[in-house]
C-alpha cells in the first residue's frame, strides 16, 4: 500500500485513538503530578442522635477559594510517585541501611503495597503467558488432527472459557473452592486438614488465580494458532514424512518456524492482558492475598470514601511504563526482523 493511501486509511482510527486513548493518558499523566490542597479544617460542634461532640470538619468556604485559584491542586512533582504507597524511595533507602541481610531487606520491600502488587502482577504474567502459549498450541495441534466432523463442536467447547464473562468464570471457581464447595471440601478431605482453605492461604490463592488465568486465556492463543495452522503448506510436511521425520521433528522444523510471527503476536497480546490482571482478584475476593497494579488503581478510586486521584494516576502511569518495559524485548526483535526482511 502506498504511504499516502495508508495515511488516509489510518486517519479515522488514528484520530479516535488520540481522542480516546492519547488525550486521557496525557490528562492522567498531568494529574499524577498534583496532590490535593492542604485541607483547611475548623473545630465545630457536631450533634447527632447519640449526643454532641466538638470535632473538626473541612472548612468549605476557605477550601473552595483555594480550589478556584488553583483547580488542579497542589503541584507535587514526583511526590506521589516516590511516596510510601508507590515507589517508596525513602523507605527503601531506610530498609537498605537498617536491615542486616539481603533476605530481610527483600522482606521489607515486598511488604510495601506497590512492590507487593508488582510482584504478584509479574508472577502472574510469567506463569500465565508461557503456559497459555504452550497450552493453546497443544490444543490447536490436537484439534487440527481430529476428524473434520467433530471439529466444530470441539472448537466451540474449547473457546467457551473465553466466551464466559471473566467475573462469572471466576465466581464459579470461587464457589467451587469454598471450604464447603466441591473442590475445597475434597482437598480438605484429601489432605486431612479441616483448616485448609484455598482462599485464606496466600500461596494457594495465587495458584488458583494463575490456573484460572491460564484457563481463561488459552482459548485466545488456541484460536489464533489454529487459524495459523491452516496456512501451513502441506508439501514440505509430506516431504518431511517421506524423509522419515517424526511428528515432533515436523512441528519443530516446519510448523513452528512457519507460525513464528503469530506466536510473537499472541505473546505480545497475552503479556499486555496479563499485566493488567484485575477481574479474577475481584471475582475471587482475593484482595487480601493478591493485589495487582490494576487492583491498586481500582482501590484508590473506589475503595476509599475519599477518592485518591493522584495516587491512581501515578499507578496508572507506572503500569503503562511497566507494560512498555515488558514488551520492549519482543518489540525490538520484531523491529529488527522487519528491517532485515526489507
Amino acid at each position, binding site marked *: 500500500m502506498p504511504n499516502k493511501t495508508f495515511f488516509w486509511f489510518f486517519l479515522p482510527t488514528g484520530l479516535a485513538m488520540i481522542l480516546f486513548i492519547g488525550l486521557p493518558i496525557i490528562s492522567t499523566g498531568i494529574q499524577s503530578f498534583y*496532590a*490535593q*490542597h*492542604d*485541607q483547611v*479544617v*475548623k473545630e*465545630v*460542634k*457536631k*450533634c*447527632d*442522635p*447519640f*449526643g454532641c461532640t466538638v*470535632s*473538626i*470538619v*473541612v472548612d*468549605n468556604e476557605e*477550601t*473552595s477559594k483555594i480550589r478556584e485559584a488553583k483547580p488542579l491542586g*497542589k503541584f*507535587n512533582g514526583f511526590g*506521589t510517585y516516590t*511516596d*510510601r*504507597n508507590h515507589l517508596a524511595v525513602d*523507605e527503601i533507602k531506610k530498609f537498605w541501611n537498617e536491615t542486616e541481610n539481603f533476605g530481610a531487606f527483600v522482606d521489607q520491600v515486598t*511488604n510495601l*503495597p506497590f512492590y507487593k502488587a508488582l510482584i504478584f502482577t509479574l508472577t502472574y504474567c510469567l506463569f500465565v503467558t508461557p503456559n497459555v502459549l504452550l497450552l493453546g498450541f497443544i490444543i490447536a495441534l490436537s484439534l487440527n488432527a481430529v476428524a473434520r466432523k467433530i471439529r466444530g463442536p470441539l472448537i466451540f467447547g474449547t473457546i467457551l472459557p473465553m466466551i464466559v464473562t471473566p467475573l462469572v468464570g471466576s465466581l464459579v471457581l*470461587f464457589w467451587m473452592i*469454598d*471450604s464447603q464447595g466441591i473442590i475445597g471440601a475434597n482437598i480438605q478431605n484429601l489432605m486431612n486438614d*479441616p*483448616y*485448609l*482453605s484455598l*482462599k*485464606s*492461604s*496466600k500461596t494457594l490463592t495465587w495458584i488458583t488465580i494463575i490456573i484460572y488465568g491460564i484457563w481463561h486465556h488459552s482459548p485466545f492463543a488456541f484460536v489464533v494458532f489454529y487459524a495459523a495452522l491452516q496456512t501451513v503448506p502441506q508439501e514440505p510436511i509430506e516431504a518431511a514424512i517421506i524423509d522419515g521425520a517424526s511428528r515432533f521433528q515436523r512441528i519443530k522444523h516446519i510448523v513452528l518456524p512457519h507460525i513464528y510471527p503469530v506466536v510473537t503476536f499472541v505473546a505480545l497480546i497475552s503479556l499486555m492482558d496479563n499485566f493488567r490482571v484485575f477481574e479474577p482478584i475481584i471475582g*475471587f*475476593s*482475593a*484482595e*487480601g*492475598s493478591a*493485589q495487582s497494579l490494576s487492583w491498586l488503581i481500582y*482501590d484508590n478510586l*473506589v*475503595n*476509599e*470514601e*475519599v*477518592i*485518591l486521584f*493522584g*495516587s491512581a494516576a501515578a499507578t496508572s502511569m507506572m503500569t503503562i511504563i511497566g507494560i512498555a518495559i515488558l514488551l520492549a524485548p519482543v518489540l525490538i526483535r520484531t523491529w529488527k526482523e522487519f528491517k532485515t526482511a526489507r
Partner: protein
Amino acid sequence: MRKILVTLLFLLFGTSAFADCNIKSGSINILANDFPALRTFVETSKQCKGSANFKVTHSSEHNKIAVPALTANPSEFSARIAANSSIVPLMNQDLIRPLDDLVKKYGKGIQDSQLITIDGKVMAVAFMANTQHLYYREDVLKDLGIAIPKTYEEVVAASEKIRASGKMQYPYAAAYKAGWNLAEEFVNMFIGHGGEFFKSGSAQPNINNAKGVATLNMLKKLSELSNPDYLTHDSEAIKVEWESGNVALMTLWASRSGTLLDDEGDPNITKATKLTGPATVGGGNIPAATLWWDGFTLAKNRPDADAEATFRSLAHAASNKKMVADAADQAVWLVEGFVPGPKSIGVIEAVKMGAKPYPMLPQMGLMHGALGSEIVEFLQGKESAEQALKDVEAAYISKAKEQGFL
C-alpha cells in the same frame, strides 16, 4: 381472586392518595444502600411524591457512586441516604446543602433528636440507628451450659468450648472480608479497648500502641475460631453461614436481624437465634462496637424546587408513625412513635452501655481504607502486630499527605 386484587389495588391507591403531601413540581431521585429498612423508608416517602417525578437507586455500591454523582452539576441524585461515615466525604467536598429552612417549613413531625447538626447547621435528618452486636444460638449454649457471653474474652472461651464439644468446627463468625468490613471490625475492637485513632487535635495516626496490638490479637483469636475463608466473608456470607447452622456466635449488624429471624430457612435455627448487646473487650466498660445513624442528605448541586420536593417526601417518611409501627422489626427507628421490639435489643443495649458513635472525622475514611488492606497479613500470620500497625500508619500518612490532611 379478582375481587381481592381490586380491593388491594384500591387500598394501595387509597393510602397513597391519603398520604399525598401536595407536592406539585420538582423531581426526586434518591441514592441509598440496599437493605430492608431503607427500602421501607424510601417506599414510604414515595407515597407522598404527589406529581413529582420519583426515582430511586438502591445499591450496596452506594459509597462508590455517591461522590462522583453528587459532584456533577446538576447532580444525578437529589438526595443521598447516608450514614455517619458516608456523610463525611460529602461534607469534605461540600456536596450537600443545609436543611434548616426546609426543616422549619416542612419538618413538623421530625424530632429534634433526629437532626444532625454540624456547626449549628442541619446537614442531615436521621431516621434509624444501627450497630454491630452479638447473636447467639440459645440451644447450643444451653446444651453446653455456657452463659451468654458479655465480653469478647467470653466469646472466645465459649467458642473454644463449642469447638471442643465437636458440635461445630467454626463456631464464631463476623464480617472479616478484607477491605471495608475487616477495617470496621478493627474500628469496633479498637474503640472497645478505649483507643483514639488520631492524636488529639491533629490528623496524626495513633494506633501503633498497646491498644492497637491488643485489638489485633483479639481479632486474630476470633478469626481462628471462624471459617477459614473468613477473609472473603462479608455480612451476607456470614448470614448464610448462620442460617446453615454452622455458627453459634456471631457479630453482625442490627439491621440484618430481620432477615435472620424471618420465616425463611430452618425454623429450628430461627427459633434458637437470639440477640444480645455488643460485647466489651479487654476489661473495658464501653462496648466494642460503634453506633451508626442512617439519615438523608440533600444534594447541593440541584435546583431548590427539587430539594424542596425531595425533602417533603423524605420528611414524610422520617416522621411517619405508621411506618415505624408496621416495620418495627426492620430497624431501630429514631422516629417518634417507635416501640422497640425484640429485634432492637442489640442497638438499645449498645446505647445503654455507652457505645460511641463511629468517628465522624474528615480523615477517618483514609484510616479505614488503610486498615482494610494492611492488617490482612497479620491475620494470615505473615507479620507481627507491631509491623501491621506500622504499615497501617505509614499507608495512612502517605494517603493523608496526598489529600492535604498532613
